[in-house]
């Protein structure tokens, strides 16, 4: 089977890869490009552990084909911090213990970041419904929701 050549931007850098038409973007990120920060929890779009941004839209990388990334801009968890500075949301998750095992954390952070880009003043209910696609089995969500609400409040006050 011949492979398709794909050119894409990931976290601002140019990437090129060859992929089979049935390969998912998640498969490409993890297995071809060694960007293993996006996690595979289900491969059916139910758990959100592979959440990435494609053209400023929040998607599950397991539900996007690798070939669909051609000419697109992708943002993954690996692009959230800049240089040695964590994004304030990342720091807040550490400060508030908003993670336990950490497997859902990359997806949750990408999704929460997407929410805050759209809505600077989300209510608790809006945070909960936005993150309803990101399963976490450890925390009971309490500290995750608090971290997102606190970051939103801090951003409004500065």
């Amino acid at each position, binding site marked *: 089977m011949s492979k398709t050549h794909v050119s894409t931007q990931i976290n601002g850098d140019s990437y090129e890869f060859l992929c089979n038409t049935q390969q998912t973007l998640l498969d490409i990120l*993890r*297995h071809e490009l060694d960007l293993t920060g996006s*996690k595979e929890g289900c491969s059916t779009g139910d758990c959100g552990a592979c959440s990435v941004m494609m053209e400023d839209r929040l998607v599950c990388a397991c539900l996007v084909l690798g070939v669909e990334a051609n000419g697109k801009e992708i943002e993954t968890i690996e692009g959230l911090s800049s240089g040695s500075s964590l994004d304030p949301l990342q720091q807040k998750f550490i400060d*508030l213990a908003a993670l336990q*095992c950490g497997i859902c954390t990359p997806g949750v952070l990408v999704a929460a970041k997407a929410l805050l880009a759209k809505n600077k003043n989300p209510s608790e209910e809006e945070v909960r*419904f936005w993150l309803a696609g990101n399963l*976490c*089995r450890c*925390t009971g969500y309490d500290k995750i929701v*608090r971290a997102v609400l606190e970051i939103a409040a801090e951003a409004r006050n500065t």
Partner: protein
Amino acid sequence: MNDMTQTNFERALKIVGSRPARPDGVDKVTGRALFGADKSLPNMLVGRVLRSPYAHAKILSIDTSKAEKLKGVKAIITSVDFEDFPSEFVPNGEMVVNMKDITRNVMAREKVLYVGHTVAAIAATDEDIAEQALALIDVKYEVLPHVLEVEDAEKSDAPLLHDDMMTIGVEPAPTSASNVAKRVEFGFGDVEKGFSEADLVVEREFTTQQVHQGYIEPHACLASVSEDGQAELWCTTQGPFVVRNFCSKLLGFNAAQIRVTASEIGGGFGGKTVVYLEPLALALSRKSCRPVKMEMNRAEVFTASGPTSGAKIWVKIGVKNNGQITAGDCILKYQAGAFQGAPVGPGAMCAFAPYDLTNVRAVGYDIVVNRPKVAAYRAPGGPISEYGVESVIDEIALKIGMDPIDLRLKNAAKEGTIAPYGPKLGPIGMIETLEAAKDHPHYSAPLGPNQARGVASGFWFNIGGETSSSITINEDGTVGLTLGTPDIGGSRASMAMMASEELGVPMELIKPIIGDTNSLGFNFLTGGSRATFSTGTTVVESTREAIGELKKRAALLWEVSLDQVEWVDGHARLISGDEPKTMSLAQIAKQAGKTGGPIMANCSMNVTGAGPSLGTHIVDVEVDKETGRVSIIRYTAIQDAGKAIHPAYVEGQLQGGAVQGIGWALNEEYIYNDKGELENTGFLDYRIPVCSDVPMIDTVIVEVPNPNHPYGVRGVGETPIIPPLAAISNAVSRATNKRFDELPLSPPKVLAKLMHG
């Protein structure tokens, strides 16, 4: 240890009890942390599993010849690659395992016993080839009748899963095989006499469904065996030493040949305490002499790992009109899955353990059915039995017109109570959590229409066990900790905090890592709420030994006797002398070469004296009487932690356990069709709670110190999943004036009860 213990309970602590950043925090929020599936090796093959399509069938033949000929296939294994074992039971934490069963669960031999049971495995150069090769393996089956429910499996004419299994624990010993593996009984007194003294006796039957731990990270591993038989295994596990021992036994390696390195672990909850893929990957790698990586997909996790039991239970409790319990009795029938080993023993032991009773009996049956073999799940067995007991307690409270917390307080177990499973209890926090619940504003807050409040308590034993860790004092005054229990929920932070508290050096200078199986003595797994208790104990002991050595070195440098040196705030201090003289840890470490060489200490012991942890939860629910949907409006989890080393992560355990319990109570269940196939093998249909399903989970940490830990730690991870099942069921019962006795309380079930009673 006892003297220092007392000091620790009373003295002001600087680090323990605070909320510092966890050492692995940055790795976890940046995607840098490497989990089970995140590692690769050069020349690596991919491994895939062929699974049974039948719930129960004899394997007549397996022909792999066509698959072997496919280009790119490098190894194929079936049961002929595994040695057989005689039946022998060995303890594995809170569970018991039998190597005869483990080898058959890892790779089916004579029969397949559930849909998803492993029949063969393949290693190939890529996924596509592996998938094609699986399709080329020709397995001939003779399909047998199957059985899924305990009430069917225990019948004398039920299809037998194991034709040599005789029920253990019944007199006289049976002469014919059965699906009932064993009967257990705990208790004392005379329950019949107790019931005859009661003013009110309530008895009721309950049903719970099979549920899965639901960790988000599927099982994954990477094995590499070289031509000389040396093996490296990277895997997501709660216990790398336990994996090493299982795999070496199953495959005939010796322990030193297999080095197991635990990856970061994406949740376990008991489900990552046994082996599935690991021995397969090792066997495939041994055959091909190339690294083999294996990952389960989500459907494989649901069908072929180890969920916990569904159950049928019967509970009977008698009380005086003043609330005094005169007797408690229960019968528990737990699904074991395909091989014996349901957690019915611990379930029976803890069923009535929150209470101080004179007449009590708990009988349990371990029953095999054509479902995946159960594994541990957070307080294995406890949520099921205590759900039944705590539901009947609530029903009694309503019937005698007593506040449900007052009823529990009247009968609460306390220090000196003889537990139903035998021992006399040390200090425990049942009364303290009940009083904290009663005092909490939640308990007296007003309720809206169709809303009601439920409460329930929970008891869990917690365990200690074999543990080994070490501490090194580096030349620049920093400190390394090597730990043997994988960190699932922040334990590296609490270990570094205890070492920091003891040493008097900042936590940032202490680097904790999880060692591989060649770096420490045997460590039992992270489970049984034992990591902070057991590993914490060894960390404190080895840190104190290192402090002793540091003082020795200071005495040498000062040319004084050792008794002239004390350790205060990270410094050696000369006790006598005209002017105060101190030397920092870093100053001593820098001169270690001159005073005897590197400074390190380790502590290896079988840690005993785990303290039971009690919890009481309060929940408000709202029942939509049109649809049967139950919403959680408000939730408060109260628990005795003994001592919270890092309170934020203790709160996290309480919150996470409560929400897992909410899932068990409201949504989660294995749904089988009449062929014995699991119909809900994904998170869409096996619905664990999502963020919008739950409110904030308020927590109260009660601290009744465990005298057997230097800081009083009990272990907190498991107890919080126990109370939610009954607390929610009690609330729904109160909201609807109907007594619910079946989980999950999903909308169709609630609606049916509302319409038909």
